[in-house]
């Protein structure tokens, strides 16, 4: 059987032992019930709070020169990735492109966003190129550019959901998804789509709603205390960024893709999947697909199944919350609570991939000296090696459990606060919370199970 999936799986984590899995799952329940009893009785997170950084630092960080420098760095890294992907050696770990895309861009930007706010917005190469082109066009035509088309309201965050799904397909399913040249071609194709979108609907509108990675990292940056407003960097109250998330069509789908794809990556190492997937692959093979394509089709089915499962489970909780009364439609409730799922999505990513980031992230030290994998040594670091002793299995398990439980607690707080603001009757607010609590305990237990040795 062909093994597809993480091309960068040089080292994988050991599953969490059963005793720790059991303890962590019990803790999630204890935390949940304690939270119901002790959380605040009045909404606290709904009003935006923001203060600029003292001493004018915020203004400097948000200034035009800083923006131009960050944008230029973003464009340089993008260009280097494409160049290495097309011209470099066809190896996943010896070429700059796969490690940069899957580890530095996709994984390292997540903790950076949570700590420092929406950093990807500053370094986003597509936004930087778009703004530079618009500036040149404005200067050349000595006037205002024609107004962009109105972005259709129904489209919402759907393009971002589709984009993240496509990225997950590339990462987890496509058998050439870890090949440098395929990655470079995919990145160029995605760039073309992004430039067309920005040209039609305006740079900022497309970046805010449709450009998959901007939307993805912006969601995580809303957990940060750092926020930029009107070109000035400032601080806000913890967790007060997510309630400001505009509920747009496709947001639930985007969260389902985010959680579903990480879940599927975990599931592929588990017994239930290994039991059924050969039969499904055989089914496709009997219908004329090559073994490799049959396996890709099987994995595609699994990924879609995982995303639908996550979405379905969330909707189940929403329908339960609707049954409490209060006169809200299911669609309204689904949108009112979707921001509270973001910390859980973060916990999934953090627990699953933090060792991959910690270990494979070190590869960037030798790749900056030898980006093409052809023996150059620009900075004299081409001979450095990855230190796999950085963190042991025990410490990894405790960090994983800590991420999952912390994400659960943050999600509970956000949902609780929104329920208080939404329902006039506090009793109804609490009753609706039993349902959202059920959803979160479900997601959190699934996260722990996927990481554990149960059915491994």
């Amino acid at each position: 059987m062909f093994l597809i999936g993480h091309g960068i799986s040089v080292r994988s984590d050991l599953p969490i032992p059963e005793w720790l899995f059991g303890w962590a799952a019990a803790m999630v329940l204890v935390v949940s019930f304690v939270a119901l009893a002790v959380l605040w009785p009045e909404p606290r997170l709904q009003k935006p709070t923001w203060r600029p950084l003292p001493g004018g630092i915020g203004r400097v960080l948000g200034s035009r020169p800083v923006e131009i420098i960050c944008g230029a760095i973003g464009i340089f890294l993008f260009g280097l990735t494409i160049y290495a992907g097309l011209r470099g050696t066809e190896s996943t770990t010896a070429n700059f492109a796969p490690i940069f895309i899957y580890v530095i861009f996709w994984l390292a930007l997540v903790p950076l966003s949570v700590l420092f706010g929406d950093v990807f917005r500053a370094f986003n190469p597509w936004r930087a190129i778009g703004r530079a082109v618009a500036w040149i066009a404005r200067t050349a035509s000595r006037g205002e550019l024609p107004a962009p088309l109105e972005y259709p309201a129904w489209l919402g965050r759907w393009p971002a959901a589709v984009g993240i799904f496509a990225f997950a397909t590339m990462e987890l399913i496509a058998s050439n998804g870890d090949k440098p040249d395929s990655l470079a071609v995919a990145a160029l194709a995605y760039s073309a789509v992004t430039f067309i979108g920005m040209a039609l609907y305006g740079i900022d509108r497309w970046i805010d709603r449709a450009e998959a990675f901007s939307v993805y990292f912006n969601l995580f940056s809303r957990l940060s205390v750092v926020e930029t407003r009107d070109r000035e960097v400032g601080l806000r109250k913890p967790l007060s960024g997510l309630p400001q998330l505009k509920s747009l069509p496709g947001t639930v789908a985007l969260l389902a893709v985010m959680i579903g794809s990480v879940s599927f990556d975990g599931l592929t190492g588990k017994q239930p999947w290994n039991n059924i997937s050969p039969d499904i692959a055989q089914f496709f093979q009997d219908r004329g697909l090559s073994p490799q394509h049959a396996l890709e089709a099987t994995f595609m089915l699994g990924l879609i199944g995982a995303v639908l499962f996550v979405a379905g489970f969330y909707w189940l909780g929403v329908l339960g919350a609707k049954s409490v009364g209060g006169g809200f439609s299911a669609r309204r409730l689904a949108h009112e609570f979707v921001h509270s799922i973001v910390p859980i999505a973060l916990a999934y990513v953090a627990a699953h991939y933090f060792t991959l980031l910690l270990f494979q992230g070190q590869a960037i030290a030798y790749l900056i000296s030898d980006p093409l994998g052809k023996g150059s040594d620009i900075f004299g670091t081409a001979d450095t090696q990855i230190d796999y002793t950085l963190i042991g299995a025990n410490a990894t398990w405790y960090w994983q459990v800590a991420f999952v439980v912390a994400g659960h607690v943050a999600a509970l707080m956000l949902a609780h606060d929104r329920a208080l603001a939404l329902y006039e009757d506090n009793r109804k607010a609490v009753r609706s919370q039993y349902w959202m609590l059920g959803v979160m305990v479900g997601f959190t237990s699934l996260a722990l199970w996927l990481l554990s040795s149960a059915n491994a």
Partner: protein
Amino acid sequence: MSRNQRIGLIVAAVAVAVLAFVIASPGGDDDGDKASQTTATPSTDTTETPSTDTTERQTEAPAPPKPTVTRIDIRGGQVVGGPAEIHAKNGDTVVIVVSADAPDDIHLHGYDIEKPVEPGKPATFRFKANLEGEFELESHVAEGAGREPLVGTLIVEPR
């Protein structure tokens, strides 16, 4: 509920959590044993009748002073009996002997040991397993030819 009651409840919950953790967590040596019980899946090695024939892959009984030897044989581009699963604890000496009927390059990821194999000239990997996690043992020839490169998986658990 008053502020003090809330704090009291949180303190009580934390105390229960710590107590449950202490009771649940298997201490010292017990830890490793339990972990290996729950994670080790029976590989084909232990069920096969031990044979001295080198074409058969076999694992000796884990007698402490003697390092466990895992034999892997590649025939016609396929691992006989499927990719091996090699279990070890941090600090163990691991010995893996790979033989093949065609020239090959075998690479153990993470530990980053690469050895050539030729017909009649098996490659012997002997090292101290001091990195925890799961590591892949791959055939570079199979990888280059677009075939499944996985020859075995090394699983190193904490002590």
